[in-house]
């Protein structure tokens, strides 16, 4: 045998060893039973999908009330904008879920709220009453629209959850609507893997930018009412505008991290004169103080007096990326789309010198001073000096969540349980038996029809399966029923490749060629046939993988892997095995067992 044959023998032998190593964890059911060597280097295994193994069944409640309330908020803002455009000085406030009150500073301006102005809102807002004396118009959200929002929110939430779960590469989750709830089923059995996914599914990811109001005397009044003996302290702050040199100063309240509740209670208890105005709110940010006491930096909460209405929201986000600040701490950089950028420009242009709070899910992440107009770019700092690895992961998750878009309404996990395989163990067992019978039939057929060459074909197909499974294990791919369909197709193609090649060799033999030349010519001629058939399917597989989702993707993964391994095993490896058959040292064989 030629020298190159030995080289190939070594190469194929190494590939087989590696494949076996990769497959061992998949077939050892208990992780504890795995030797330390595998624990260290070959831990990955083939996951079975929901239909074959079952997984975690989660039920989420969608907070429709909140979705409706934010829709009403948006409408109220639009009405306010329209009125301001006409020169009216108004405050628009939502109360309850559905009610909106528009109050005119000058009651006689009430006529500005006419049918013309209400035209775009006619379908959604009904005017309930007009009080000329106080200059107040009361409106209510049309109850018929509630169901519409409910439906829309559910659909949007399902879409968002699907995007988020997809980012984790969880293969073929089930995400379905169940009444007004959403059911999410994740394949797999290991509880610790789910924690991160769960935290990401449930995240609202509502990003808002709100202007800090330091021009009112309100916070000073509140500060005066702070009890002297409690945990809450009052701190002053001041800054100078860079360009104009104008002075800003205000006070804020602060508590240690552990005393958060005392502060929120105090704020909630503010009434009468001190009650938070309708169009304002008090937000909290978790800060790290510079002074380090007892080795760990102190964390505290501080207040911001904010305009309730968000100037810009995450709705207008174009993209988000991982990034690092000047100190090398991870943060999220984002880009606004065109509309968002112009809104941001307007908002920051009007408020130069003030602070703008970046609010993520009702928590302030930072509140920098606006030094000049800001356009499309911005960033979200993660705050605190945490474990850098954890921080990095948080940033990664936040980027993913922001990219997949905000949930239309907060989700609440209402139920969680393990579920079994959708296919049922009995059906799986029967499927195994029937596929075993099928495989046996193929093996026998090849042996009878092609005799010793059939044995080579069977060996090549076995190696094909081995490589295929090993690659799936190395990718930690999920195997589901559609995936098995892809497997069946590749096995069909493997059988076909062998038959195409062997029939070709027979044709060459019929022409009177010696076994050796017939084998070489057969492989050479059949190669392009097999190659074209494989590449066409591979091309189709790539498109199915990149555009399809769920089961279509599962099918494409096994198909793609199978096509590659099949081409290698049925063309190269079996040609190499034929070398044993046709060329023995010394004697040239005159017949071929094919």
């Amino acid at each position, binding site marked *: 045998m030629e020298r190159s044959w030995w080289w190939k023998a070594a190469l194929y032998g190494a590939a087989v060893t590696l494949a076996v190593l990769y497959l061992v964890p998949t077939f050892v059911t208990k992780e504890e039973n795995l030797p330390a060597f595998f624990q260290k280097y070959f831990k990955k295994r083939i996951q079975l999908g929901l239909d074959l193994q*079952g997984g975690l*069944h989660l039920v989420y409640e969608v907070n429709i009330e909140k979705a409706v309330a934010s829709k009403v908020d948006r409408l109220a803002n639009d009405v306010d904008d329209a009125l301001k455009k006409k020169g009216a000085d108004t405050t628009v406030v939502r109360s309850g879920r559905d009610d909106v009150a528009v109050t005119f500073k000058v009651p006689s301006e009430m006529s500005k709220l006419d049918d013309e102005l209400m035209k775009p809102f006619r379908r959604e807002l009904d005017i309930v009453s007009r009080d000329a004396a106080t200059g107040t118009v009361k409106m209510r959200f049309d109850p*018929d629209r*509630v*169901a519409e929002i409910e439906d829309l929110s559910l659909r949007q939430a399902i879409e968002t959850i699907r995007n988020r779960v997809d980012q984790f590469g969880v293969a073929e989750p*089930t995400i*379905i*609507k*169940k009444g007004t709830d959403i059911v999410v089923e994740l394949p797999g059995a290991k509880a610790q893997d789910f924690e991160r996914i769960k935290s990401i599914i449930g995240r609202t990811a509502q990003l808002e930018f709100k202007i800090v109001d330091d021009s009112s005397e309100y916070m000073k009044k509140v500060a005066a009412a702070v009890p002297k003996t409690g945990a809450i302290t009052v701190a002053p702050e001041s800054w100078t505008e860079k360009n104009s040199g104008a002075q800003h100063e205000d006070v804020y309240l602060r508590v240690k991290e552990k005393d958060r509740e005392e502060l929120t209670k105090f704020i909630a208890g503010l009434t009468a004169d001190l009650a938070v105005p309708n169009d304002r709110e008090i937000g909290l940010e978790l800060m790290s103080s510079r002074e380090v006491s007892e080795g760990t930096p102190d964390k505290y909460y501080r207040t911001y007096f904010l305009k309730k209405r968000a100037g810009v929201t995450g709705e207008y986000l174009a993209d988000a990326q991982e990034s690092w600040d000047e100190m090398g701490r991870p943060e999220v950089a984002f880009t606004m789309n065109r509309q968002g950028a112009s809104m941001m420009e307007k908002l920051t242009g009007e408020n130069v010198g003030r602070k703008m709070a970046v609010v993520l899910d009702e928590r302030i992440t930072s509140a920098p001073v606006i030094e000049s107009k800001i356009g499309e770019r911005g960033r979200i700092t993660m705050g605190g000096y945490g474990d850098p690895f954890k921080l990095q992961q948080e940033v990664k998750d936040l980027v993913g969540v922001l990219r997949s878009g905000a949930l239309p309404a907060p989700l609440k996990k209402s139920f969680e*349980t*393990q*579920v*079994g395989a959708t296919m*049922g*163990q*009995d*059906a799986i067992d029967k*499927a195994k*038996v*029937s596929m075993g*019978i*099928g*495989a046996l*039939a193929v093996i026998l*057929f090849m042996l009878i029809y092609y005799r010793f060459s059939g044995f080579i074909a069977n060996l090549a197909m076995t190696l094909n399966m081995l490589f295929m499974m090993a690659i799936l294990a190395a990718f930690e791919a999920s195997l589901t*029923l*559609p995936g098995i*369909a*892809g497997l*069946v*197709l590749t*096995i*069909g*193609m493997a059988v*076909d490749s062998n*038959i195409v090649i062997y029939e070709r060799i027979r*044709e060459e*033999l019929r022409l*009177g*060629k*010696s076994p050796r030349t017939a084998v070489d010519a057969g492989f050479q001629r059949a190669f392009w*046939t097999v190659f*074209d*058939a494989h*590449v*066409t*399917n591979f*091309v*189709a597989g*790539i*498109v*199915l993988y990149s*555009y*399809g*989702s*769920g*089961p279509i993707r599962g*099918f494409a993964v096994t198909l793609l892997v199978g096509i590659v391994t099949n081409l290698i095993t049925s063309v190269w490896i079996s040609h190499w095995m034929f070398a044993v058959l046709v060329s023995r040292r010394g004697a040239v064989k*005159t017949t*071929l067992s094919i």
Partner: protein
Amino acid sequence: MADQQKFFEVIKSGTDIDFIGKQKYWIGASIILVLITVAMLPINAYVLGDRGHMLNWGVDFKGGSELVVEFAKPVDASDVRAAMTAAGLHNADVVRYGSQSETPSYMVRLGAVSVLSPEQAKKVEASLARIGDASLRKFESSEGGDKVYLRFDKAVEPTTLSAALKAAGTEAAQVQTFGPSQDNTYEVTLIGMEGEVRKALDAKLGAGVVKAIPQVSSVGAKAGKQLQVDGVRALLGAILLIVIYVAFRFDFRYGPGTIVALLHDAVITVGAFAVTYKEFSLTTLAALLTIIGFSMNDTIVVFDRIRENAAKYRDRKFDRVVNHAINETLSRTILTSATVFFVTLAMNIFGTGVIRDFAFAMNVGVIVGTYSSIFIASPILIWLNDKYLTMQKRQATKPERNVRKPVRRDEEEAVET
């Protein structure tokens, strides 16, 4: 070698069957099958009352009901599934629910049971337009079709509503308020899945086997709109790329035949599901993808031989070249198809549930896939080749364009022989 080696053969070498000469019969048969499919879809939907949909969409596509059943004694999932099948509730998903315990709980997902046809729904809606002094503002059927949501401008007594529904010819299993009371929305359950399932289980596993059915809810489709849109887009993209690849590797004349053949196979397989009214689920979709892949593989192998022979036998008529290539590859075509067919037949006979549906689709698909490479793809190739040649001939007759005289089939024949 002097002594010709003997092989075990199903098709003797040198076989020459005239496939192409009889092509119009084969194409005719295909057209009839495709027409049956196209006709069967609306017939299922509108003519056959007990079918009611174009295809028997499974819970994956249409949604349905989800029940949690607690059992009083140990019961196997397969028994539950068998009980559902016995009661005519086919292809139920039965899944162990919650932790393993002595007395198991199972989650049962059933395909939708449509109780109201669109005409019936209209009739009911009209008759409910006014009840007392309350008027109907919204009438909506659930995705599963077993529930109706009614919204009035004023509160209505559920019992009054029940009576009104009865007067309209629809029996309601349950009427209850839905959502906040000021919404005046009522959920009307037309068919009590709970009762049906309990009855089915009692009949098969003995009375009292069901401890409780704590949860009954309607669920949406697993394969939502997005998934369907993605799927269609992926398929179209794949087809386009295949045409490009085939045009690049072979010739543009070879592309359309491949595509028409694979569409032909997909359509006829869907037709088989329309005629038998077997459930069309995500697994069926996977089978369709497999069939398309198989069909493509088969067509490419035949086309490859045609290409090779067309270069070798330039003196022969193209349709004879094609016929010869089909005969040369006939042995492999039959061997491969028979192998795949018997493997999937084994899955059909020995498997259950979804495996069986998958195997059934494959059985149909393998037959039409093999057939289409010979009788659909090849005639299209010949036809396109003829068109191409006449077009070249026409161009060649224009003197100013006559740069190089293209070889014509008949001329070539005359010269070489």
